[in-house]
Every structure is written in C-alpha cells, then in structure tokens.
C-alpha cells in the first residue's frame, strides 16, 4: 500500500499539477501579448538613411574643421520633426572631404574642435575629457575607445550632402 502511494499520483497532487498548469496558461496568455508589445522596438528593422544637403559649398570647405549644421527629417514614432545635426567638416590633406560626427564615442556627449585651451587642435569632450586628433581618432589614455563616427557624404552640384553616421573601428 505504501509503495503504491509513492508511485501513483494522488488525487491531491494531480489537482495541484493541473492547477499549476492552468495558472501557467492564464499567466502566459495574459503576458504574451503584453511582452511582445513592450519589446516591439527591439525587433524593429533598422531603416536606411537618406542624404541631406548640408548647405555648404565645396569650395567653402577649408582644411580647418568647420561646424556645419544640417537638418534631418526624423520620425520618432507618432512624432515627425526636423532635427538639427552637427558635423565638423574639413578637407583632408589629399583634398578629400571628411565630415565627423561630434558624438563622443565614450558616452555620447558632444565634442568641440579646439574648444579647450589646454588641448588646442583637438576635438575635446567636456564630459570626461575625451580627446580626438583632427582626423577624429581617439587619443590613447583618454576615455573614448573608438574614433569619431563619420557621416556618409557626397558632393552634388558643388554642394555637400551628408547621410548616415557610420561608426569606425579602432584605428
């Protein structure tokens, strides 16, 4: 009798299992749509970017970095707006144009060219003292680990067009 008791599921145990199962179903049924609802942004595919005019003529770009603002149509869920983005634009020694994204690769503050007296001719981040050389490469032993991102760019009719900001690997 006592051996039987060990092998067989008692009525009470059976009811307990069933209760757990039905409870699990109810919890899952309630939560599944809610969880999918909450994590939706994570599963959204990434949209590609378009080129936007930076409203600066090619011949106005010098070898000294200039702060250029350009406007991007941004869709933030139900909210459509034009945001101003900033690029530091200059001509490299070989004559090609480079547009750096001033978002610090450390923690996302905004860097400025030549903005700190102690670090002339560098991009300087005021938050944690990150430094980048003129080509946007991070100076070793400062917080950033990667060079500044570079905007995709093209010249059309002598006007600079900027696109998506492309992160660069460590140089």
């Amino acid at each position, binding site marked *: 009798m006592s051996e039987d008791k060990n092998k067989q599921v008692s009525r009470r145990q059976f009811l307990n299992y069933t209760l757990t199962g039905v409870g699990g179903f109810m919890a899952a049924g309630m939560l599944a749509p809610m969880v999918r609802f909450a994590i939706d942004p994570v599963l959204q595919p990434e949209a590609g970017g378009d080129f936007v005019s930076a409203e600066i003529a090619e011949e106005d770009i010098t070898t000294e970095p200039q702060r250029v*603002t350009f406007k991007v149509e941004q869709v933030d869920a139900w909210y459509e707006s034009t945001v101003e983005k900033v690029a530091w634009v200059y001509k490299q020694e070989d004559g090609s144009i480079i547009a750096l994204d001033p978002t610090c690769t450390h923690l996302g*503050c905004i860097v400025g060219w030549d*903005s700190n007296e102690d670090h002339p001719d560098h991009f300087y981040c*005021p*938050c*944690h003292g990150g430094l980048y050389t003129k080509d946007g490469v991070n100076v070793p032993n400062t*917080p950033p*680990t990667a060079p500044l991102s570079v905007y995709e760019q093209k010249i059309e009719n002598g006007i600079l067009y900027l696109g998506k900001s492309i992160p660069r690997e460590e140089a």
Partner: protein
Amino acid sequence: MHRGKGMKFVGDSRVRENDDRHIPKDYSEYPGRTEPFWPNFLLKEWLAGAVFLVGFLCLTVAAPAPLEKMADPSTPGYIPLPDWYFLFLYQLLKYPFASGDYVVIGTVVIPGLAFGGLLLAPFLDRGPERRPTRRPVATSLMLIAIVAVFFLTWEASSHVDWETRAEQNKIVEDVEIDKESEGYQVYSDQSCMSCHGENLEGVSGPSLIGTEHSADEIKDIAKNGIGSMPAGQFEGSDEELQKLADFIAGLGEE
C-alpha cells in the same frame, strides 16, 4: 515534519495549533523598560516626523525644484550631469581603469560587485558576532565603500562650475532678435557669436538675453572680460561698442 493523526488546526485553516515557531521573542527577555507601540511609542515617532516635515516643507519653499530649458538635443556644449546620488558612478567612469576599453568595469563589474556584495552580505558575513568591532572585515569593507562613494561624489561636484551652469541653463523668455539692427551687426562682426550664439542664446558662454548688467557694465565686460571670458574680445570703435551695449541691454526688457 509532524504528520498524521492528532494534528490540530486553527479553525478550518491549515495553520497548526500550538505552532510556536513564529511567535517573536518576548521583549521581557531584553533588559530595561518596554513601552506599548500604540500609542506611546508611535506618538514619539510622529513627533520626530512632524519636526522633520516642518524642516522638509521649509526646504521646498526656500529652494524651488530646478527646471532647466526645454530639452533640445542640439544644445551645443551641454555637459550632462546626473542627480547627485549618481555622481559617484559618473565620476568613476572618468578614470582610465573604468573607461575606454574597460568601460565594462565601470558600468557593470564594480557596481555589480558592490551591489551583489551588499545583497549577499548576510551570507558572506555569517559569524554570530554583531558588534562592528568584532567583524573587522565586514566593517572595514563597508567603511572603504563609504569613503569611496563620498570621495567620488566630492570629486565629481568639485569639477562642476555650478554657477555658470545655472546661468547657462536658466529658462529664457523667447525674444525676437532684430537681426537687421545696428547692434546686431556689431554683435555678428565681433567674435561674440562664437561663444554667445547666433541668437544670443548662449553656447559656451552664458545667454545674453535679459542680462542683469547695465549698458555701461556691458561695455566694460566686452573690453576687459569677466569670469572665464578673456579681455580684449571687442575690437571696434567706441561708437560700435555703444551700439552693442545698448542692443544687448535692451533685450528682454519689457
């Protein structure tokens, strides 16, 4: 576990009668005088609470909750700063061993170890001793942690120029700027714009809209500088200087 016949329950519940495991220790075992929680002790607690509340309300009246300008992601040169109780973490991320390639140490490893250690303290410090002096390891680790948090918070806040910060970020009324005016012409011809912005809204320097300085003071500042603004910024004629000062002093006046 006791099973079988002879078990007695309280009413029709499954709570066993004569189950004395969960009755807290009788305080008569403690030395000294006890006091009823209700109402004697609670009254004292509420008196302390009332004093606290008065002080707290005075604080809310004396120091209004700060509100900066409406969020604008393109604000140039804005230095983010967390609430004061996260400053120590903010400061930690400035150090080379907790930033750069090792940022994970600063954001995950150190906070994780500290929080995990705190969470599991009862299982790490298992001896029966309760006095801090008899638990030197636990006590000293906690003291080190406290000193570290205080030091980092102090370091972080000492690097912040709170006054300039408040000045730069205060809410300014929208003011129409007449960009055709003579004063604005002088403003844009001189180097003012690079620090004070195209619309005088302030960039690395403060906003000039609704400034408290008079026209004469502005003339002096433009020539001789103030605070972190260097001298010799203005390089024009006295007539231009007068126009500039009148223009800036006239902004934001009703």
